[in-house]
């Protein structure tokens, strides 16, 4: 990938969109998910996603982009996220967040780390590494809830695999723009 500064800002701004999207998905699902333990789990993780978005948004500013610069991914990825956000049953919602989205986002972050310089871009690395640690905790927490609720949260693993394949098939998600799109003062 060999990213230049502007492209790094665009990646991080796209990641920020993804974290805000996750936060809003969880927020919409909290009142519409009946199971109290799942509702509470999602409520906890709203704050995690918000903190991730906040840290990424502060880092975009350091990369000469606006504070909390947020860049929507390419339309195919937006469509995929909208499709997932429309799911209504609890088992599928839990699968989508914890078995699909978190691993998928983690893979996107890892890809970024592999293509950036860990010294020159160390502040971004720190932000992303903390996000990945949070993801591991979040997935551990869902396993605790799954153990507590037992059969009620057992989902179709084939469906998760199918969703994951569809997500991975969208290889490019960042909408790279012209230099002017990152000028200071452009609203995020």
């Amino acid at each position, binding site marked *: 990938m060999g990213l230049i500064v502007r492209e790094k800002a665009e990646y991080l701004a796209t990641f920020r969109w993804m974290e805000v999207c996750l936060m809003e998905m969880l927020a919409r699902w909290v009142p519409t998910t009946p199971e109290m333990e799942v*509702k509470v789990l*999602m409520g906890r993780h709203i704050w995690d996603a*918000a*903190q991730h978005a*906040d840290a990424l948004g502060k880092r975009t500013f350091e990369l000469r982009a606006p504070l909390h610069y947020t860049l929507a991914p390419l339309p195919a990825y937006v469509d995929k996220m909208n499709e997932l956000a429309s799911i209504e049953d609890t088992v599928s919602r839990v699968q989508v967040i914890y078995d699909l989205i978190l691993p998928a986002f983690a893979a996107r972050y890892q890809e970024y780390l592999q293509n950036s310089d860990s010294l020159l871009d160390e502040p971004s690395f720190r932000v992303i590494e903390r996000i990945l640690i949070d993801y591991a905790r979040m997935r551990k927490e869902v396993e605790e809830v799954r153990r507590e609720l037992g059969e009620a949260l057992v989902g179709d693993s084939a469906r998760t695999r199918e969703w994951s394949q569809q997500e991975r098939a969208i290889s490019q998600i960042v909408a790279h723009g012209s230099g002017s799109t990152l000028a200071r003062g452009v609203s995020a």
Partner: protein
Amino acid sequence: MNASSKRKTVQGITLCADPAREECFRVAQGDSEMQTFEDSMSEVARRERLHRHMNNETGALEIAAQCLADFPEAPWDLRMQLARQAFDESRHVRALYRRLRQLGGRKGEFPIGNFEWAVTNMCDTLAARLAIQNRTFEAGQMDLLGGLHKIWRSIGDETTAEILEHILVDEVNHVRFANQWIRKMVEEDRRLLLKVASAMRFLAETNAKLSGEPSTGAQGTSFEHHSKLGINVEDRRHADFSDAEINEILRQSGMGSLAATGAKG
């Protein structure tokens, strides 16, 4: 359809339809359907208190989450506060549920009500929702919790008392950020004052109709319910209520003499 845009009618009043609950819960549509006990600190009454509180905290979580969903254009710093509130309320639910189970209780053991959700989500501005949920309901809970932990401690239940004290410190933060943001939003757009005033009037009228008590103004009956435990003046100061606002609350709650002498926490 958003959860906040569905409607129900209770005693002729249009309110936001209930959020999702498991089948084990019986959802009451008024105070008369809730369970109360003559001995308010008997074993079963203690479980009912925890069960009711657990559902109230669930409602607070849902309201904060719904604000995030309904107002994506809100300032990011305010959204961060709402996200933090969702996290805090989630922890409160878990702590109360853990305690309920320790005392032999279970989910769905008693009826629950979703009044706060039903009223708050009728408002179409974030300022009005913050005014009702955080500045009124949560501030009222601050008053309750200010005295309640002492009652639990007096019967030897240190564990529950400690839970309530921890919940109280979180609620102070939720009320404070709401007070600060409402002021800021109203300064930027004076028309919001009308929205907030209208929302408070709707709350008072709805409360009066559903409880069968006369409306006593914007802060109305919620303070009457709390008057036995008093107004938590110290924490209201921490939550950024002005002295004038605290004095007005004391006056409305029948403690005007304290207000007249300048209440100290």
